[in-house]
């Protein structure tokens, strides 16, 4: 089989490597959206746990006499 000229072969080689790195970037962007969702859910849970505290209850940070801030 004769060797292909570089200018014609280049687009195929570039296509193969770009395919791999496109998949990696796509995967990482999907994972980034999952991490963002986890962060949102964590914030929701933190809000939920704060709401569940009794109105007169002292916050955790001050209960043990630890400095706040």
């Amino acid at each position, binding site marked *: *089989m004769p*060797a*292909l*000229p*570089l200018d014609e*072969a*280049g687009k*195929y*080689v570039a*296509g*193969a*490597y770009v*395919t*791999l790195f496109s*998949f*990696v970037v796509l*995967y990482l962007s999907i*994972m980034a959206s*999952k*991490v963002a969702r*986890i962060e949102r*859910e*964590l914030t929701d*849970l933190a809000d*939920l*746990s704060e709401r*569940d505290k009794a109105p007169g209850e002292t916050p955790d940070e001050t209960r043990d006499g630890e400095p706040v801030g």
Partner: protein
Amino acid sequence: MYSKGLKPVSIATVVVVAIWLAMVFFYAPLDADQGFVQKIFYVHVPLAIVALCGFVAGGIFGLLHLRSRDRSYDMKSYVAIHMSIIFGCVVLITGAIWAKAAWGHWWVWDEPVLVSFLVVFLLYCVYYPLRFSIEDPDRQARYSSVFAIAAGAFVPINFAAVRMAESFTHPRVLSQTGGSMPGEMRLTFFVGILAVTLLFVTLWKFEMTSKNASMQLKRLRRRLEATA
């Protein structure tokens, strides 16, 4: 904690992938037969090998799950198969690009290596509907593990069958006599396998960490809602 070791593995992956790409384009000599197009070999074949190994690893994790009933092994099996399917997509696309460049056709149906990989890929595509059609978590994990073991055993059998086939269009790079690659090409190829393996492990750990975090959040939410 699946995130343990994720940072060093990620850094190692970036470094080895950079070295691999540099070797592919600046170190490995041009192939006398195919010329520049042969550079696709360094991405296509390592990806195929790692994807097939990932399928086998999924089967091994499935076996460990059935032996121990530890659900974490089922998750490891699922993520290994999931990553291998993603890698398999890239293998099929890069293979088609290479076939078009070298043979003038996007797909050649009488080439056993191509068709056997497609058969394995399609077999594993069944894994998702099988897994997600079962609602009971224990049954889902058990049935998925059985599938992973059976399909994982099929992968080396399939590989051996292709090796025993008479027609070889792909170069034999891992033969007992050492294949037909010069030293620079061989070294670049093995660095490619290392780079793609590290990429697989990094993404696998990343996915495991994400799934574990989601599960822990669900547990926490259930506990908080129960006490509310």
